[in-house]
């Protein structure tokens, strides 16, 4: 019988996947780097604590870690950290800010994503960045497939509304003497 050193298996997993998981945590947290660091540690610490079950057969621990990440991001420790829904203007510090103040579509979309409720953002990130099926997303979020689809639909509607409103605000600001293009 092969004996697996589960500690080394965990370390190998963490070395290989921590960059990817940190990126996922960053998006799930609404591009809040401090929160993403904490989320990654929460998820990996859970996996480390259960390494003797997660890694003993050489199976991938990623679904487990992803599941912890997603749920921790949605509801972090019973409201100790509970993100309020942010207005678009509050979503500063994103990677795609345009220094010339020209309305950039990618920037708008990212700001709109960061302003989504955490559950809706998680569905979009898992579907469009992780490339998961709705069934896999449902497993990760501990909910029904129908819930995933309704959350995705609402999120897309909301993205259109919010980003469109932001573009319209850009028009209003421009009319007040701040040309945007």
């Amino acid at each position: 019988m092969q004996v697996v050193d589960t500690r080394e298996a965990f370390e190998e997993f963490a070395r290989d996947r921590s960059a990817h998981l940190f990126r996922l945590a960053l998006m799930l947290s609404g591009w809040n780097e401090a929160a993403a660091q904490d989320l990654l540690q929460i998820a990996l610490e859970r996996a480390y604590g259960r390494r003797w079950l997660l890694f003993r057969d050489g199976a991938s621990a990623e679904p487990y870690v992803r599941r912890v990440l997603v749920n921790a991001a949605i509801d972090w420790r019973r409201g100790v950290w509970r993100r309020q829904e942010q207005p678009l203007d509050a979503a500063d510090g994103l990677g795609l800010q345009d220094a010339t103040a020209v309305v950039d579509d990618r920037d708008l979309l990212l700001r709109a994503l960061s302003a989504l409720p955490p559950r809706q953002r998680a569905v979009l990130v898992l579907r469009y960045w992780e490339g998961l099926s709705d069934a896999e997303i449902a497993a990760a979020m501990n909910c029904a497939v129908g819930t995933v689809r309704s959350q995705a639909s609402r999120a897309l509607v909301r993205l259109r509304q919010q980003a469109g409103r932001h573009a319209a605000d850009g028009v209003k600001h421009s009319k007040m003497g701040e040309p945007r293009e």
Partner: protein
Amino acid sequence: MGSSIRRWVSRVSDLESQLQEVLDASVAHVLPPFDVIEAVQRRHRRRLVRAAVASVTVAAAIGVAAALTGLPGWSGPAASRGNSNATHRAPVFPGGGRLLFADSRGLKWLYPDGKAVRIASGFSSAEVNGPELVAWNTTGVYTMALDGSRRHLAIAFKPGPAAGVPQSEALSPGGSRIAYYVGKMLWAADLATGRRVQLGRVSFDGWRNNAAILASANDGSALLVVKAATGSRSAYLSVTDPALVRAYQNAWPRAGRPAGLTSEGFSTVGTSAALAITLAARGPFGGARPAEVIRTGAGRLVTYAPATPQQFEFSWGPHGLFRIETGAGDNPGSWNAYIGSVQSDRLSAAITYGADGAAFNPAGTVIALQDSNQVTFLPTPVPACQSTACLHFQLKYLVNKGKLITWAP
């Protein structure tokens, strides 16, 4: 101007196709700005040691009361020190005694009258050992009086990054040895002689006694006893132990045999020691259907298995009291705590506080539950309180920065 909106509206019609590109770009080349493995293992060891601290320090604290009364220079808690304000003010927390906190500035006692007394700056944590405190920081382990005076360096840690930073210190039940990690290596040091022994890469579960450590095998198949003086190891308990398997299957009849075990160490109950063992079956996301099996000094096995416990943590309190924390669906927002006693096979109703730690008062009648900077005080709930005394009062809250370490007399 209008073209901006039109451009946006036309783009959002293929919004879904843009999402992947935007998300990719937002995190391209981003890497974690810290050593992930080290940070995770440090966090894990802190949690393991917290359970040991809860059992060892509270047990030690029980013995402090008698010793304190005869201790020269010690005048007792603030409420009994002739503080005229204190005698007229409602206590800020029930249960008596005093709380030890560690924050970025060091250690401090908090008394029921609200008075906080800083006793040792620059120390990250400590344990109460009879009439003295054993405290540590990156330079070494120190013994000192409970008020921070008469400080003595017992173990000096080697300075410099090459030597590594000692972490997750845990004092033995009699206070004569301390265990700690440097990197992945577990060490044990004798506080009287300063002699250190490297115990290797084992997972510390708690002290068995002053001379030996209880550790769990990396594959979860067994508990080991590691001698602190020599590092020699011997098997202690296997996951296939028939009595353990039966106890587990009493709680989860359809779960099959347990796939792994770990331990939260011993606690003194009366004149004997009880051992807490966590068993779990194999599940799709790791451990499934965990249960806590406590082996009492008389050899009786008691099993506790709260509903939907995908997350499961156990910590000892005084007088055979304990706390189990669980979460459903790996969602930390759903965590609940349950209080139990080895003298009852039933747990309390779920309590929704204590995500960041807990401590019982020495009498075991009140529990302090920490969530970030808030500490919530509850009477020890039924049926666990029937082994101590059942009090009745409304929840009390205290906002205080720092990590709650222990509740001493």
